[in-house]
């Protein structure tokens, strides 16, 4: 159990954040704020969430996508950071584990994930 004062300190920062519920296997579109010199712009990054880690203000999630020339790209984002403008859940995946690192060894059709169908 974490210390209640640390929890309160972190909760005060997190409370106002509106973050959709998602888990590993979901396809996400993350809008990231990027500062170049004095200019600020928003870049979106789309991929499959393969892991969620940590708790409190240190909670992060990992998004994997296939880049140019079929090179896998993985980015780790802090979930509550102010640099994340928006997180959009595009598709819910049917997976049976919390960490999908096995996808790193698969490619093409084998690396697909079925869409979750609710009855």
């Amino acid at each position, binding site marked *: 159990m974490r*210390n209640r*004062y*640390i929890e309160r*300190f972190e909760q005060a*920062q997190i409370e106002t*954040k509106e973050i959709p519920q998602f888990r590993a296997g979901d396809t996400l579109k993350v809008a990231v704020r990027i500062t170049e010199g004095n200019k600020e712009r928003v870049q979106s990054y789309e991929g499959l969430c393969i892991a969620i880690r940590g708790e409190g*203000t240190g909670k992060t999630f990992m998004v994997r996508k296939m880049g140019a020339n079929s090179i896998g790209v993985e980015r780790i984002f*802090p979930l509550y950071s*102010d640099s994340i403008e928006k997180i959009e859940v595009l598709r819910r995946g049917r997976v049976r584990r919390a960490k999908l690192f096995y996808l790193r060894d698969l490619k093409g059709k084998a690396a697909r994930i079925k869409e979750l169908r609710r009855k």
Partner: protein
Amino acid sequence: MEFIVEKIGMSRTINVESIPVTLLKVIDTNVCEVREDGKALVAYNSSKKLNKSIEGQQAKFGITKEFNKFMTIEVASGVEAGALDVTPLGEANVVKTTLTTKGKGFQGVIKRHGFAGGPGGHGSRFHRAPGSIGNCEWPGRVKRGQKMPGQHGNTQTTVKNEVISFDAENGILVLKGSIPGHNGARGLVRIVK
């Protein structure tokens, strides 16, 4: 001005330039007797067992049973006997924290003083030993202050930190960066600016 604190642990902020923070709890302190040199005898709560000498002191200063440990700290001018006022912490920007560092036991020179050590392989036969500690028959002694293996850590250290925020209601002081010691360690916070 000094205050008795307990280290709670570390956390971070969610700003774009995320700041690592350390949380401290300011312990309730009762001023017993103010001395003329700006210091005061204070009492605070510790898990110490009561004995007759403590009870005698408590009766003398008219304080309740939970204030069972005594200490002399610097206080602001004009402080009177009674509960110590923590509001000056709300206006503080920089504080110095004095705590005992984590004890590492008896350590060699690599961990204790950051010596480089020797190569691991190629038959070097010199790995983590301190090496030469001085000259020969002249001067016939080891110079003072030579860095050698020994007790590492468990010493009193003072560090300077910026204050991020202070919650007077719960007595939570939030500092930027880290401070020495384990979680739950007790020490003193002195207001610098």
